């Protein structure tokens, strides 16, 4: 499973939406349950799933699926 698939899977679980509702164009505005609490839950889930630790500055700016994938790939040295 690649990074994009893993990220989308985590988002689907945390925000309790169907996979079709999450794409690389999705932003926090598009997801009803994407508030700061679930944002942290999402970050913690991604960190656990991928074995990484985001910087806090990064975390607050990851407000779209595209940004999350890009930052995550950067953390994993895939860019």
């Amino acid at each position, binding site marked *: 499973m690649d990074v994009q698939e893993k990220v989308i899977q985590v988002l689907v679980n945390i925000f309790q939406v169907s996979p079709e509702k999450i794409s690389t164009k999705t*932003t*926090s*505005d598009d997801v009803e349950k*994407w*508030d*700061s*609490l679930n*944002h*942290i*839950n999402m*970050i*913690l889930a991604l960190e656990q799933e991928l074995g990484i630790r985001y910087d*806090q*500055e990064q*975390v*607050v700016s990851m*407000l779209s699926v595209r940004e999350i994938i890009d930052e995550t790939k950067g953390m994993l040295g895939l860019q």
Partner: protein
Amino acid sequence: MTTYPVLREVQINDYDKVKSLFHRIGMPSESLEAWKAYRKSHALKKAAKNFSFGWVLEAESNIVGYLANIPMMYSYQGSDVFVAAARAYAVAPEYKSHGLKLALRFFKQPGVTALLCTTTNDHSAVVYKYFKAKPVPQNHYNEALFMVFNSWRFLRAVFLKCRIPSAIASGVALFLAPLFKIITILKQRETCSRRQDLLLKRGCVDNLGEEYDKLWTIKREQEVFYTDRSVAVLQWRVNIAPFSYHMFGAYLKGLFLGYILLKIEQVEHLKLKRCLIIDIFGDFKNDENLVVLISSLVREVKDMSVDTLEIIGFPQAIREAAKRFLPFKRTITTWPYFKFITQDLKTVCQNSDFWYVSLMDGDSSL
């Protein structure tokens, strides 16, 4: 799609827009006088020239997020500890994913030794934990002790809290009040202790004598983390809402032992007038003196036409004395959080006696 909000420092002229935000999301707003008072905190005289009083998220000329930042001075072993206390964390629903930016600014601010978040809810607690803040080291902070003066109003408040409609809550409370009154008589039957040599005298905070500063000068040298209780700070705090506070000096054979500070709050949504013991501070010599003083305090509060008297926090000795008169308990679901920046404080704060936790801490009673 919502506009991406811009984060900036709050200015005093943002007051009306922040008030609108609070109104829109159903949070109680503060007076402009309180806003101005925070900017006159005594703590600023000792530290952080470029202190920020909070941050806002702004979108389309509206304030859509706000977090206040109150400067406070603490003391440990005679040393000043500059603390920033978070207050009034509010974000408009359509910008709910951007709230973390405010929290990040709070936790990353320069020039402070400690960060304190005393008014939390389950949601903000998760945010604070993410930024490595910890619950204050006081084992019983989530257990408020209280006594009831007005059974009907208390029961009505309980039912209102359970979201029972007001008319039904009032009616059922009226029906059950006589029975509950008997319960309060049975539980609150601790006899009032009186001693001629140990007195509680009502004081005016604007005219506190030098004995208050002398007490603070002695206490601040202890190995205890205290919020600043100098006369200047007591006056600053009380004068934010002067008609809500009541100060009592405690005297043993004419000698000043310490003071008790009360605050009366009207809890609008519960239609309850409650009296909170904000501070009990002094050298009370022994627990028996403390019992007599709290007994005197209960007599004073009875005359204030309040519905309940409540105590939150404080070391075990004070709680044990209070428990004799305030036998009811309620659990507070939230907990104050703190984060120390310096390693020396991080090490010593593990001890549960380290912090004299009360409603004087942070913005708990502001």
